[in-house]
């Protein structure tokens, strides 16, 4: 039952007295709008139970399952499985977290609120930036939970402070690139279900066919070639090297190049998709 009747009549004169907008630079408004959108997207995460639960439970569950169910059967050489596993779980959780960018964006695009935003004098890219910033916040929290869980199952890094900073920096850059890619998906898919599927169908194989949970040496040739040359493996190898002293080789460099390249490609595509979405 809708109820529109007001208790006291409107005061149209007061309601419609003209208001001067604030005069600021374009840059100020881009930052202000993005900040507002990031707060909004963060609120969505905090206030939706399933997102909070998956944020906390997912990494812990994977950590426990891998460590105690698979761990005994996997030979990681001189490195203990708990030490080997940590980088894999971290990057996998961050990748899965980015799926919420797809989902949340797809939900937004379906609802009237995006039309409202687009009818405002706000910056066009702020909505996507907001989702990606919120994703970053979620993934920082996720990362902290994984570190705690890791220590609980026997993860014992020997990284220096500088190496820890490298780990954090590379993880954030990786999150950023995968969030932008997820934003593309979010703008393409036609339904919420498709958004969820797209994430699983892409992220599951990509994180499994990598060095996340097992050394790549045991994989069949074709799969191994793929696994050893994809960005998730480079990122995991670099983080693992910094944390527990496995060989670094050129994994850090390759990871950075991949992430930056993906961002450079994805940003204009998302902008284009966002504009196109609404003009048809």
């Amino acid at each position, binding site marked *: *039952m*809708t*109820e*529109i*009747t*007001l*208790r006291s*009549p*409107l*005061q*149209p*004169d*007061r*309601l*419609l*007295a*003209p*208001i001067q*907008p*604030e005069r*600021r630079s374009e840059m100020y*408004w881009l930052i*202000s*709008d993005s900040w*507002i959108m990031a707060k*909004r997207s963060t*609120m*969505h995460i905090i*206030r*939706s139970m399933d997102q909070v639960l998956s944020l906390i439970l997912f990494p812990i569950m994977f950590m426990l399952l891998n460590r105690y169910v698979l761990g005994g059967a996997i030979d990681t050489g001189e490195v203990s499985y708990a030490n080997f596993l940590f980088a894999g779980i971290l990057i996998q959780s961050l990748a899965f977290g980015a799926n919420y960018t797809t989902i949340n964006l797809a939900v937004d695009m379906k*609802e*009237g*609120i995006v*039309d*409202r*935003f*687009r*009818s*405002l*004098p*706000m910056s066009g890219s702020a909505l996507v930036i907001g989702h990606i910033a919120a994703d970053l916040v979620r993934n920082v929290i996720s990362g902290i939970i994984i570190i705690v869980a890791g220590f609980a199952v026997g993860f014992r890094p020997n990284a220096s402070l500088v190496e820890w900073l490298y780990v954090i920096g590379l993880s954030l850059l990786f999150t950023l690139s995968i969030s932008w890619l997820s934003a593309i998906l979010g703008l393409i898919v036609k339904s919420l279900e498709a958004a969820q599927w797209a994430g699983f169908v892409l992220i599951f194989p990509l994180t499994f066919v990598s060095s996340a949970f097992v050394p790549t040496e045991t994989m069949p040739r074709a799969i191994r070639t793929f696994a050893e040359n994809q960005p998730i493996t480079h990122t995991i190898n670099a983080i693992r090297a910094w944390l527990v002293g496995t060989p670094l080789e050129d994994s850090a460099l390759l990871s950075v190049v991949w992430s930056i390249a993906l961002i450079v490609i994805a940003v204009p595509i998302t902008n284009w998709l966002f504009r196109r979405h*609404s*003009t*048809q």
Partner: protein
Amino acid sequence: MDPRQSNAADNAIVVRNLQKSYKDFKVLHGIDITVRRGSILALLGPNGAGKTTTIRILSTLLPPDGGEAQVNGFDVVNQACDVRSSIGLTGQFAAVDEYLTGEENLLMLGRLYRLSQADTRRRTRELLEQFDLVDAARRPVRTYSGGMKRRLDLAMSLIAAPPIIFLDEPTTGLDPRSRLSMWNLIKELARGGATILLTTQYMDEADFLADWIVVIDEGKVIAEGDANSLKSRVGADHVDLTISADSNFALAQQAVDGVQFQANPEQRILTIAANDGVTTLRNILRRLDEAQIEIEGLNMRRPTLDDVFLFLTDNGSHEHAKEIN
């Protein structure tokens, strides 16, 4: 007063030869609309007529394919940002953020409209009060009732006190009482000096609210005027003839062929515009008599906007300009 004849400076919205296609499907075939400052214009048309498309173009959500449109003196394509600062849009479905509270929704919108922090807070407080949302201000919108969402939606489009307000089917889905309340709200807003362009499928709504009515169908303007002039266009009085169940309704229709009439086979009613008053009526009755059609009832009345609409849009009706004599 006819807005098409007014000064350019008096016009809040000017639309000329507006065209739009979705892929190969042409939706707007050259629409012209002029809305005077401070007036209410109703865009009246059936489902699929192109009302929402027009509103979306005027609020810069869709680019037009041809023609031009100015809102508050700004071009919707080249000066989209100035247009956006001048308008408040309330769409067909509530565009509120369900996870935020009512207050957060308003605060967010105020800043996105480029109001200062202080103005945003002041307006939020005022609008929560005006729209009876103070008690619910700190609750997530998904806990709101339908009516509360509608009120918040309207409040959100008013946060920057825009001079021009677009309302796309503002009363669709409302119960009769709420509908009346919404009508009063809209009237109040116009009294405050706002220019309002609303769309509706209901003639009585256009009749009650609008200073000027533009009737569109299949992307074309088929008539415009104030409610009275539109009604008088349909002719003088209307006669509803109820055809007896014993007689053939299709035969009755044939018998009056050549007259401006509308047929309602389910209720077996023929509605005839009696342009020549009693003369028309006598003619009709004679023809029906000759065709041996029995008439069960006869009712003479003034035309309503419904008649206007049905006669103009050809919606399952027959329009014959010829008159009999």
